[in-house]
């Protein structure tokens, strides 16, 4: 048996747990996932991260990204990806993560001394 209450000026309505309740208006937007947006500025360039937005699904995220990040021909292609799907290196492990390349100076061309008069090198 449902409880009954006067709700929102619509008269007495049942309120038991079996009665479906409409989602609260202001909470719908909160559930939209966060998308990170990447734009290719022109042909020949990489996609570059430009910012983020919330959208209910992938397709609407692309449309919203078009409106938000390319109002002045800033791009020829857009990627969106759910922020939750990105795996990133952690700033806490910065040293162990990037240190291995720090002491390998021989990987750079300037490590090698070549006489000035050797052409095209």
């Amino acid at each position, binding site marked *: 048996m449902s409880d009954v209450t006067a709700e929102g000026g619509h008269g007495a309505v049942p309120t038991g747990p079996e009665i479906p309740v409409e*989602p609260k*208006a*202001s909470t*719908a*937007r*909160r*559930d*939209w996932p*966060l998308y990170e947006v990447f734009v290719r500025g022109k042909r020949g360039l990489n996609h570059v991260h*430009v*910012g*983020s*937005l*919330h959208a*209910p*699904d992938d*397709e*609407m995220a692309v449309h919203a990204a078009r*409106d*938000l990040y390319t*109002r*002045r021909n800033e791009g020829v292609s857009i990627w969106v990806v759910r922020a939750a799907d990105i795996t*990133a290196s*952690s*700033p*806490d492990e910065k040293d162990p993560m990037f240190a291995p390349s720090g002491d390998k100076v021989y990987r750079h061309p300037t490590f090698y001394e070549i006489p000035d008069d050797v052409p095209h090198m």
Partner: protein
Amino acid sequence: MSAPTLDRPAAPDEAALQAQFDATIAADHRIEPRDWMPEAYRSGLVRQIAQHAHSEIIGMQPEGDWLLAAPSLRRKAILLAKVQDEAGHGMYLYSAAETLGADRADLTDKLIERKQKYSSIFNYPTLTYADVGVIGWLVDGAAICNQVPLCRSSYGPYARAMIRVCKEESFHQRQGYELLMTMMRGTDAQRAMVQDAVDRWWAPSLMMFGPPDDDSPNSAQSMKWGVKRHSNDELRQRFVDMTVPQAEVLGVTLPDPELALDPATGRYRFGAIDWTEFKQVIAGKGPCNDERIARRRAARDDNAWVTEAATAYAGKHSR
């Protein structure tokens, strides 16, 4: 028998983290979202970025009032593009605030509940179409003065958002100035309309830079952390110096009898600002505060069905 001790990583040493943060700031490098930062740096930035975002969003209203009354299709298209940009600027900024752990919908609720503020300037009414031009020239001009140095703010996402905003802001100022030049070439009544708008917007524009340096509680720490780069008074002075010659070309009088070039410094002296009015407007007692908040609340509540419909659509198509 006791349980074996787990091999936990040592708790991060707060002093070491603070030292690393300080070194990044000292080297004028950027702080990025996943870096450790002092709680006051994070919360101060959320406050500043949210306030900035709210200003862009509320800032759509004074000019938006003229969208249906624009005098030509050309002016209407320009104004639509401008108001759409303001929405975009708000979104870039909310996006930056979210990298600090803030929630966008929550920030909007705080604005509507008046727990967070927005720029005092948007609490003044737009009485004639000349106001649209003056807002572009003076209000967006002042915003440019404020925002250009923020492109070098120490917090990466904020600085990057500001770079996008500044690129678009130049269009805003130029369309405003061109609108005013067109009116100044028109009839006496149109010229009077421009002068009247300048008379009403000049002082509020100067107030946009915030309280004087000796009465600006958050400034010193913000400067130390590289969030802010110049003091309120310095930016205000820059704005005056930039604007006076523009007023001369336009042929309007800035409403300040004390405005005069100081030959010793090459800068313009200007009269005292009515900080009582500023404080009143910030406290919610400006001419349009209630109207602005009421409309923002209506936009959230009355249009909620749109987001609900989009959510329902997405739900159906994901199955």
